[in-house]
């Protein structure tokens, strides 16, 4: 009796979580897959088995351009997040000696993350607009004669907005990896005459790679399906797959949206699997 309970126990314990994912993750995605083969008119979708939606996507110049544009955002946002996360985490992990100050500064970096994303995004508008603070400052300093227009409603604004929103997802794991680096390793390397740059290259970067990989997974997946920032910061003019899907949903073209979602999912999974080759997540917990 006790023996069989012991064997059953893990299964019972794991059941609720499995059920949640089956209900709200696996089943819905299967539905998306099914619906992506359905037909639709202006107001309803009808069960069918047609490749028309996929043909539509792959034959359209615009959807191709949209995918490329999304990859552009992903690459830029990812690159900038890494470029910010490395020095910031390095500064926190190695330049700050007092533990309490380190915690304080780290908290400082996290607080904006706890506030509403939408609010954080719209808060750029009074800064970057044509009559915004930045432009007023530039005009007053006589650096420009005309207000700079590409600050808002542009690719620049979109990337800026996303980096602002998602950099925390890169900083946290990178910082975590750096904190775990054994300090004696660095001291030893120094004793053996390694330069600061060599220490960085041979010890710190390789040991930070898993953190960067985890951060990259977050940043890449968050940016791939993003449409709110693209809409608000892009002034409705810019395109991304997420926005394309949401526009298609808005005009009730669910099957087309579903087909796009399937392709988006495939791309995301390919990227994530690529990143996972670099790092064993289970080891990193």
């Amino acid at each position: 009796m006790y023996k069989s309970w012991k064997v059953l126990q893990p299964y019972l314990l794991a059941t609720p979580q499995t059920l949640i994912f089956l209900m709200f993750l696996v089943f819905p995605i299967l539905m998306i897959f099914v619906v992506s083969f359905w037909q639709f008119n202006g107001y309803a979708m009808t069960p069918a088995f047609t490749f028309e939606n996929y043909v539509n996507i792959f034959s359209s110049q615009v959807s191709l351009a949209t995918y490329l544009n999304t990859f552009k955002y992903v690459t830029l946002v990812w690159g900038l997040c890494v470029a910010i996360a490395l020095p910031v985490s390095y500064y926190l992990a190695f330049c700050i000696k007092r533990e309490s100050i380190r915690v304080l500064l780290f908290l400082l970096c996290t607080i904006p993350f706890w506030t509403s994303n939408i609010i954080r995004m719209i808060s750029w508008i009074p800064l970057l607009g044509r009559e915004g603070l930045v432009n007023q400052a530039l005009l007053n300093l006589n650096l420009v004669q005309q207000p700079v227009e590409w600050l808002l409603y542009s690719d620049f604004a979109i990337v800026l907005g996303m980096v602002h929103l998602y950099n925390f997802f890169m900083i946290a794991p990178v910082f975590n990896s750096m904190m775990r680096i054994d300090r004696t390793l660095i001291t030893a390397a120094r004793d053996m005459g390694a330069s600061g740059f060599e220490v960085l290259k041979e010890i710190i970067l390789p040991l930070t790679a898993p953190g960067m990989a985890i951060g990259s997974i977050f940043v890449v997946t968050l940016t791939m399906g993003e449409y709110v920032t693209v809409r608000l910061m892009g002034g409705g003019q810019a395109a991304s797959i997420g926005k394309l899907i949401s526009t298609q949903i808005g005009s009730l073209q669910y099957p087309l949206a579903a087909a796009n979602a399937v392709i988006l999912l495939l791309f995301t999974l390919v990227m994530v699997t690529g990143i996972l080759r670099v790092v064993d997540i289970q080891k990193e917990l």
Partner: protein
Amino acid sequence: MPKFTRRRLLQTGLATGAALATARCGTPNNPAPGPEVNTNSIKDVTLRFIGTGVAQINDIRDKAQEDLGFKIELKALSTEENNQIAITQPGQYDMFDGEYFSLPLVIPSGNLQAIDVKRIKSFDKIASFFTTGDFNGLPVETAQGTAPIKVMYLSDQNSSEFSATPTDWATLIPFQYNADTLGYRPDLVDKEITSWADLFDPAFNGKTSILDIPSIGIMDAALVVEAAGLMTFGDKGNMTREEIDQITEILIEKKREGQFRAFWKTFDESVNLMSSGEVVLQSMWSPAVTAVKAQGIECVYAPLKEGYRAWGGGIGMSAALEGAKLDAAYAYMDWLLDGWVGAFLGRQGYYSAVPENAKKFMSAEEWDFWYEGKPAAVDMVDPFGKTLEKAGAVRDGGSFEERMGNVVVWNSTMDEQVYLVQKWNEFIAA
């Protein structure tokens, strides 16, 4: 005229109620029935009302609850979400405040029930271009696009076929509507805007905007390209595939040239674009212009020589309504046409379906300004207490008849709707 509310009217009892109602609203061929609703059960009713931000205003709800005695829940949505919910989530609303152009998509879904016009007290007083299609022989009678009269009536109570001629079964009861045109900032635009073609004027490169709702945006765009002599249409309200291809090509080219600053989806986005100076000339809705003015910024709603693009909003009833809820829905529609709301929305520049009822709740000066096109005798104040116009100002475009009479297109759902949306999305994404 004594001030009485409909609730008091209901409470006063059947006899007086009927008498008053007949006196106010009865017409010879449509004798107003007494308040047949049971006041007790109707009080327990909660009506869920969805619509765009235009009329989902808490002040209106509060007044309605006070007058009618039952509860109303509002949900403000964008035009797109509104249609989306109307079609795909029938369980989420009891009443739908939607635009006529959405009907070719909403009616086939079977989510709305036909409205018995005999039960609508002020039906015969509704502006005639909704109910008969006529309007003093003015251009609006032949306007292109999904004109309300084309989708106003169903051939039978249980039919989902539109009837070309009036029947007793209506799809929506008209509520508020307007003639839309281009708005601009006279302080930042140094000429008078007189034509839709000005939207493509290179002088405004990077400072214009257009709205990103296919059925509406395409009509503005059509007026613009036609006025600019870039292309012609057989019927702007029902374009062919070739026409859709051609117009999107022109739009994409203009977008690449950097003509547009942004696209907007809800009227307040357009307000923010305009008042922050991001955009100086754009297609706009009338209350958006008033909202910009309410912030103390000059904004003109240009009367254009080609005419206006109109939209019409109305109230539909969910197919699921029955019993006390159905009675409450009819009571609510009567209340909406009764004039208080018409006056409330009128003070922001919308027109009421029954202008003569709205008139009762407006001051003579307000009526003259908003409907008659006369110079304001006193300062015009919006329902939220902001002064919109100083005494002496004249409404852009003139009187009700001049504005609504010169409508040349309505927002449209075309036969090629699916294709249009696809091409429109390509334009937005290009």
